[in-house]
């Protein structure tokens, strides 16, 4: 199939791998930021094909994994009320809150719908004027423009029964958080290609020069990732720390100008708590005051929810690249996709789920 097969070609993969081996003289630790990249790496076994001197660490780029339990519990609280139709991306439904997940709320009678875009929930709002439609706005810069567009549409059309539970987060602050961590071993990043399709990669230049790390904007297919690693290793061996773009077929320096404009119109940057990492300064998006009417947290009178994470779950360390999923004593024993202790075991982009699905030995 066009645009897929050429990026999974075993012969091209072999050529990149031998070039990476030829160039690598030292040991390097590279973090792939996005969970989609983690899954591609583990699914295709790319880390096992690389020379032993290259270590890949799995980053915090899984939106489902980093959504805080407090927000998830608020989602569960809202979804349990009537007359509410709670709309969410499918991935989020199985993630455990502090007491239950959204699928359980659905089994208990909650009206929870899987949608593919925030704009779908606008349609549902128009079809159900006597119900409150709440969209669970999770994700990174990639999904932010569609969230902004939904708010703009609701505002322009005078839709009163629509709101968003804002959980959007930004990737560069999380990368900086990882670099600042005392134990960080990260020497370079494969940046998340799809995030950069929206916001471009200018913002990474400060990160690269301040922390002296090469950053390669990278795609999600096996050949993309191998090429991204080759470009990164080339820089590491030369001692340079530039921002380079492997994913040129989708990403340019500026990103998508129109998408950035509507994000700026609707959202403002706020501090946000990340599951497993804690609060990160200026790492979240919230609705600007003029759109406050669409803020589900303001619309629903929610009691302050205090939660405690399962103490056995090490997902915070996994998300920072300090531990591998297989380092966790609960991995594949107490913690499985059916009974997950943390979100990294649930999401289709979670590192623990990737290891469980593709690496677990009986």
């Amino acid at each position, binding site marked *: 199939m066009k645009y897929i097969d050429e990026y999974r070609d075993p012969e091209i993969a072999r050529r990149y791998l031998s070039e990476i081996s030829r160039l690598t003289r030292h040991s390097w630790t590279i973090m792939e930021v996005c969970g*989609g990249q983690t899954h591609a790496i583990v*699914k295709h*076994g790319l880390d096992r094909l690389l020379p032993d001197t290259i270590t890949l660490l799995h980053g915090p780029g899984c939106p489902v994994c980093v959504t805080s339990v407090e927000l998830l519990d608020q989602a569960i609280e809202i979804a349990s009320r009537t007359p509410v139709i709670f709309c969410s*991306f499918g991935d989020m439904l199985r993630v455990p809150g502090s007491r239950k997940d959204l699928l359980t709320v659905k089994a208990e009678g909650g009206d929870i719908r899987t949608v*593919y875009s925030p704009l779908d929930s606008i349609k549902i709002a128009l079809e159900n004027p006597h119900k409150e439609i709440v969209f669970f706005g999770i994700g990174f810069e990639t999904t932010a423009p569609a969230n902004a567009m939904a708010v703009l549409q609701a505002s322009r059309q005078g839709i009163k029964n629509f709101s968003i539970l804002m959980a959007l987060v930004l990737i560069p602050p999380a990368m900086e958080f990882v670099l600042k961590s005392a134990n960080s071993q990260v020497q370079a990043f494969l940046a998340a290609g799809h995030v950069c399709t929206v916001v471009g990669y200018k913002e990474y230049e400060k990160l690269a020069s301040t922390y002296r790390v090469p950053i390669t904007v990278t795609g999600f297919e096996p050949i993309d990732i191998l090429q991204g690693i080759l470009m990164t290793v080339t820089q590491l061996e030369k001692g340079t720390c530039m921002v380079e773009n492997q994913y040129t077929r989708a990403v340019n320096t500026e990103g998508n100008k129109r998408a950035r404009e509507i994000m700026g119109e609707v959202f403002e940057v706020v501090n946000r708590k990340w599951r497993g990492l804690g609060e990160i300064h200026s790492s979240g998006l919230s609705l600007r005051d003029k759109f406050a009417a669409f803020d589900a947290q303001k619309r629903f009178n929610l009691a302050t929810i205090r939660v405690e994470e399962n103490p056995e779950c090490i997902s915070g360390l996994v998300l920072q690249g300090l531990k591998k999923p297989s380092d966790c004593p609960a991995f594949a024993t107490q913690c499985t996709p059916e*009974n997950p202790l943390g979100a990294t075991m649930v999401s289709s982009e979670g590192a623990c789920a990737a290891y469980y699905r*593709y*690496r677990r030995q009986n």
Partner: protein
Amino acid sequence: MNDNIYQGLNCPLPITDYPRVLLAHGGGGKLMHQLIDKVFTAAFSNPLLEIRHDGAVMETTTGKLAFTTDSYVVHPLFFPGGDIGSLAVNGTVNDLAMCGARPLYLSAGFIIEEGFLIESLWRIVLSMKAAADKAGVAIVTGDTKVVDRGKGHGIFINTAGIGIMEHHMTINPGQVKAGDAIIINGDIGRHGIAIMAQRESLQFETEIESDCAPLADSVQQLINANIEIHCLRDLTRGGLATTLVEIAESSRYQLFLNESAVPVRDDVRGACEILGFEPCYVANEGRFVAFVPEADAATAVSILRVKCGWNQAGIIGRVTEDQSATVIMKSSIGAERIIDMLSGEQLPRIC
């Protein structure tokens, strides 16, 4: 009534984990297997049930009979390539075929929601009649219940079927042997994507139609050609991956699957890429795998291709000597990985 006899049967599912049934308990993945193992099989336990095949094969004084049942709750009721009626006939016919039986008689139970259009019911019934004629079975008994509006989803259908065994082979996962070739009759994933596209109003460039089809004749052709069949299984919910994991777990052998040998249509692959699904987990309604000795494999493939019209039939993998009860897939890029059952339903990804 004396309840004492049931006291030894405490509900074995951890109530704290799942106090209620989730949709995932019917999704064909691990939760469904847990429900079957820990609730149904635990309570009904008997040797025929424990073979864990698509139907039960039982001895009678005049020969062996195969018996199976299945319920159909598909939504939407009508989809490209079929409808709930053709599904209800073919699904049960195929379960009998997978036992190696010649399907003969079906029952049909209808649970209809108040207000359902008679015209739709008629369309469904005509479709069942056409499917039954094509598969050479008669629908000989039935039942009708109507439930209050809002308490059904239009219509649910249950069919049960009886077939006769006209050969002396035992066909079930227990017969799988090291060295067996794994054969598939065609491309995978079409039914699931067709349903998904309708249900979620997803528009693709071309319409993807369900692969819904009867398989009994194909199995009969293999039997007539004296192919030594060890196991047959149709690929329904959970797709090829789940079916192979089930067979690996029942047979205790490791199965080796070659990803690039599994036919998948480009439009189905494209839809899967968009939704974040893997084709080998997507549902089918007219596909099956056959486990046959290596020596019979080429003949079996040729019969499926030439006599049965399955142009894309082929060998997709092998049973290894290893007794680890796992499925290993060699990916197109050359790396090997474990294939596992999904926990519940496939959920579309975020970005």
